[in-house]
């Protein structure tokens, strides 16, 4: 069911409109990732949905009840929890930090002790319980912050780039733990991040936000593979985009001309249509020679390597095949193909890999 529904939200800061969102819904048990570059308004939207900031316009309903007035908002806030980029712990022991929300709610001491110990165990910080919070490493502190949120057994969780300040190993471990716990506890979550890969790990749905507005919401598959426009495409990593003109059609597929090359795409078009397309780099295959007609790959283009840049566990290869094309290949492939700048290769991709974002008559 729809747990949190926000409509017509408009937030103004310093005279400027920083967030303008028509409708935003979080369903119970689901995790929604809010992705976008820095300054896109993710944090502001998140805090507004948690009623920590006040919008100049808009309504928020929780479990069907419209929230207006401070006491209703307070009642709502006692059913949610927030974790921010900085742990924001108080200058006291880890135990007291985790227990804070429970104390605020007036829970009796014995019960607090039990709960805190359980959740400390869940986040593997039991040995830290009696340490002073200021003395923890950033990874440990963020675990405490998470424990503090989960111990409240909230209905909905708001996380604002919780891993941004952590070093890679801490982040890896914590992401795994959190993904596991979220699944187990079945709590709804709204997760803001600028890191696509984090979003993909956790999210059931993904929302792309820029300039205070939400450009697209949908399942991860939808957003990553079928971005609605160039802006979203560039943010979700669909690096290759181009314009083309339809030159011939054949039930359900078409040939388009792009920079004097012909590319086969799927869809119903008419000759003469102008289309704007994108291809995900993971779907561009590189080979020494064109892939044979005995494969289902319809598009083979000779290309020259323009740039090779490492991306951790894989490489991003930028090619020129009449228009710029990007491909991701593994390190092994890079070595086996001896990919170097300036060399000629064959770039291939399926017709179904081409995603048409816009099309129209000129």
């Amino acid at each position, binding site marked *: 069911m729809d747990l949190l529904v926000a409509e017509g939200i408009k937030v103004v800061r310093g005279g400027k409109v920083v967030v303008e969102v028509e409708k935003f819904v979080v369903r119970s048990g689901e995790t929604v990732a809010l992705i976008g570059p820095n300054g896109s308004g993710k944090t502001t939207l998140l805090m507004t949905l948690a009623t*920590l900031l006040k919008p100049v316009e808009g309504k928020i309903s929780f479990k069907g009840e419209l929230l207006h007035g401070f006491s209703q908002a307070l009642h709502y*806030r006692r059913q949610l*929890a927030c974790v921010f980029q900085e742990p924001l712990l108080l200058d006291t022991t880890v135990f007291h930090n985790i227990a804070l929300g429970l104390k605020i709610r007036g829970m009796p001491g014995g019960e607090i002790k039990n709960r805190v110990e359980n959740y400390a165990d869940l986040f593997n910080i039991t040995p830290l319980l009696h340490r002073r919070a200021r003395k923890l490493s950033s990874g440990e502190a963020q675990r405490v912050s998470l424990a503090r949120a989960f111990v409240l057994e909230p209905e909905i969780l708001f996380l604002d780039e919780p891993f941004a300040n952590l070093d890679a190993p801490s982040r890896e471990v914590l992401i795994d733990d959190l993904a596991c716990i979220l699944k187990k506890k079945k709590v709804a979550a709204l997760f803001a991040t600028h890191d696509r890969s984090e979003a993909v790990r956790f999210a059931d749905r993904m929302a792309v936000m820029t300039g205070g507005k939400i450009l697209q919401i949908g399942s991860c598959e939808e957003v990553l593979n079928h971005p609605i426009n160039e802006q979203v495409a560039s943010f979700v990593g669909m690096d290759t985009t181009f314009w083309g003109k339809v030159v011939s059609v054949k039930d359900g597929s078409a040939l388009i001309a792009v920079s004097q090359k012909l590319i086969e795409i799927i869809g119903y078009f008419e000759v003469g249509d102008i289309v704007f397309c994108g291809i995900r780099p993971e779907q561009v295959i590189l080979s020494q020679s064109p892939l044979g007609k005995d494969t289902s790959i319809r598009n083979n283009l000779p290309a020259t390597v323009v740039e090779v840049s490492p991306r951790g566990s894989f490489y991003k290869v930028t090619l020129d095949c009449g228009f710029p094309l990007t491909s991701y290949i593994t390190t092994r492939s890079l070595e086996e193909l001896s990919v170097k700048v300036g060399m000629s290769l064959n770039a291939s991709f399926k017709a179904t890999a081409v995603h048409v974002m816009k099309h129209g008559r000129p």
Partner: protein
Amino acid sequence: MELLIDGFLKAFGLLFSMDREVFSITLLSLYVSGLATFISLVLGITFGTLLALTEFRGRNFLVSLINTGMGLPPVVVGLFITIFLWRNGLLGFMHLLYTPTAMIVAQAIIATPIVMGISLAAMQSLPQKLRFQILSLGATRFQMFWLLVREAKLSLLAAVMAGFGGVISEVGASIMVGGNIKGYTRVLTTATVLETSKGNFDIAIALSIILLFLVYLINLVLTLIQQRERPR
């Protein structure tokens, strides 16, 4: 040199003989300045915090007023209060001139901007998002206020010490609004001025030593509290 030694000896003499007048002067000093500091603490921390956490038009102007107030010359405060409290003045009907109450009010007015200014700075130096984190835990405004005050405890205790230090050593306003009346509004500082102007330097030094000792004792207690809470 002799004078100082005389003074020291006289001080001990006065203390150990529990000279009644010195005793009552000391007690009155503590009462007046203590109560004034308490009032300034309550008003100063509350408003300093409120100001730190809210935004509104004219806030900067208000903050600049407070900062000016921190350097407000006590005699100026004393003069204006005296004028108000004169029998024929605006508040003359209250008959407060030349009473310990008037001294408490004057000292509270002197100390409050000091405590307020330091509290404001202390609260503003807390992490920006901390307030939101606390609210997100479901705290009422009152609970949030207390939690933030506890977080800023170190600086706030410094504010209290500054406020207290400012008024226990104050003499100009205290003489003006109190009248330095024997056994009624005479405190350690005003008595010291009196004895000095009479030329009784040994007594003046003795009173000064008692005052210094008192101030040290109280600051010692406050410092111990402050440093005990320090993150170790």
